[in-house]
């Protein structure tokens, strides 16, 4: 039995798979250009990248966690909580009449809330030794509830509007459409380089592949996992800033139904749900794929449940493919 040659085979299969997904994405884009009316209009292209921007940011944060073999359900609650607290600061708090102060304060608080939830998750997983599934599901439930309660108390409604117009720049309103796109691109590049070229990035992959071996090798596994949770929360906080700017309101249900798109982007792109392989390039491809499906299906007037059906099928197939590869690898190793 030659573990090395098996690993090489699996690696080359993943390489082929990743590139084939890119080929399919490009083919799908070409098909959309040719067959989908209005796909290539300036308005739709702007829309496409704007719609992909907050998904990319939050998916990058989740990618760190998935590479480590974990999951983070709390990201959607961070979207909601950040949105309503930030909106409150900008529209209803004593700082509201001073947008030059309220906007930066709101942004810092939204990022801080994301980091706080991430830190709670990190603590639960590394110190209390809860599985990430349980820890982040618990924080998701708590902070989703807090978001709704907070909004109903401060606004007697489930959303807060009246945000300062200057804040909408972050959401890409009008001529500022490049702002969220550039922000998302920066987040992607920073994440990509961190994973590829830093010691922390190598630790992430190592811990994701084999936590025990990583520990024996001297990697501080707990610190790595804690930092990942913190990053995931922070990224979700940034996504909340962008999404709140785009929707121009603090929404207590923001991101409610977004989790499936986040996971779909990561899994379809080619990152292994078991951890240890994949990366941000794959997430970028996955985000574009999911955004393309939603965009073109809407443009074609396809029934909404068919779009959901296809997303679900794609996730199932991609996750099954990943499972088969991991099974083959472990059988040959054993």
């Amino acid at each position, binding site marked *: 039995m030659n573990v090395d040659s098996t690993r090489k085979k699996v690696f080359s299969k993943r390489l082929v798979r990743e590139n084939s997904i890119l080929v399919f994405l490009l083919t799908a884009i070409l*098909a959309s250009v040719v067959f989908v009316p209005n796909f290539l209009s300036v308005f739709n292209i702007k829309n496409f990248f704007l719609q992909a921007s907050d998904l990319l940011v939050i998916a990058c944060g989740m990618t760190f966690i998935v590479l480590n073999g974990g999951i983070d359900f709390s990201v959607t609650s961070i979207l909601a909580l950040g949105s309503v607290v930030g909106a409150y600061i900008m529209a209803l708090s004593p700082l509201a009449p001073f947008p030059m102060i309220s906007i930066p304060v709101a942004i810092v608080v939204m990022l801080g809330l994301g980091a706080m939830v991430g830190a709670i998750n990190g603590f639960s997983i590394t110190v209390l030794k809860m599985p990430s599934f349980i820890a982040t599901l618990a924080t998701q439930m708590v902070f989703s509830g807090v978001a709704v309660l907070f909004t109903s108390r401060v606004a007697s409604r489930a959303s807060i*509007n009246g945000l300062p117009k200057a804040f909408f720049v972050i959401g890409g309103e009008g001529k500022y459409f490049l702002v969220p796109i550039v922000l998302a691109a920066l987040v992607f590049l920073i994440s990509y380089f961190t994973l590829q070229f830093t010691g922390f990035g190598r630790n992430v992959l190592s811990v994701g592949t084999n936590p025990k071996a990583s520990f024996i090798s001297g990697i501080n596994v707990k610190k790595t996992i804690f930092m990942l949770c913190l990053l995931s929360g922070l990224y979700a906080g940034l996504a909340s800033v962008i*999404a709140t700017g785009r929707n121009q*309101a603090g929404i207590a249900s923001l991101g409610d139904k977004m989790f499936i798109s986040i996971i779909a982007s990561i899994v379809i792109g080619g990152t292994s749900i078991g951890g240890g392989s994949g990366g941000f390039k794959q997430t970028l491809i996955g985000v574009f794929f999911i955004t393309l*499906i939603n965009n073109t*299906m*809407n443009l074609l007037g396809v029934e909404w449940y068919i779009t959901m059906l296809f997303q679900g099928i794609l996730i199932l197939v991609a996750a099954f493919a990943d499972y088969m590869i991991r099974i083959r690898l472990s059988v040959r190793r054993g």
Partner: protein
Amino acid sequence: MKKVASLIALVSLLAALGSTSVFAADAKVKIGLSMDSLESAFWVATYDGAIAKAKALGVQIIPIMAEGDAAKQNQQMENLIAQKVTAIICAPKDGAAIVASIKKAQDAGIPVIMNNRPVQGNDVVPALSVLSDNYAMAKEVLKWFAEKAKKEGKKYKTILLIGNLADENAVERQKGHKEIIAAYKDVFNVVAEIPTEWNHEIALKGLQNALQANPDANLIITPSDFLYPPIRSALEQVKRWAKVGQKNHMAIVSFDGDEGGMQYLKDGYSEADAAQGATFTGEYCVEWAVKLSKGQKPANPVYRDPGIIVTMDNFKKVAPSVWSFKSLK
């Protein structure tokens, strides 16, 4: 496998060419219909009315559902704008969050008609808002009940259900109910107030707790017939699902006039229902979407449907004019 998945996506994109909405004679008019969901019979009736009217007028209509996701609805509205529709009918999940995409539609020269749920705030004024007079209807139906209770010398320990506060309709109905409750303090004693978020599970848990804490409660005020399933379930559990006149009867005052609510009223399980014109508003929105597409403007940007107050006393006379009547058994 990934290749298969990608292939499925690719083929679906191409196959989806055939799976589109109604193509029709008047190719110049293309209406986008953006709705929250089809969770309740009321919305299904609105949707059916809109689709039927579009077919009758020979215009294309593109329906899209947000499935309860306000941010997704904004994205879907943007996609409708990209499709260069000539008008958009919108029943928003969240009246505040939808403002951003209405602005984009108006900037693109596309008139927007609000169906049933208004936009919140003053940042944007839709071309037309077709609304039920929720506040007036909620007041009227509860006032009828209060006057009847006064005549009969009855007092009611009341459980008040509240809808989703992102929905302006729920806010208006709550306002109307609470005004009458305050005006008839000798009739109503509110023992529990349950925010339901228009969610059956939340409503059921809230009702179970309220009935546990207040076993002698004898009136439920609900802002929508949509909440009847958890109401019935909770009452059956405590053996209080009984008709008017029976010992354990729980009085119910409702809103919407959908098939379920009207059937319970007909069968004697409830006292009154404020019926909205679901099918009519769907049809009216499409009529005006066509007119706005051709450059006409309404004299008044807000149309308020006064609705029909149906009670156990006037049922035979008034119920046949409600949209759901023909479906009753």
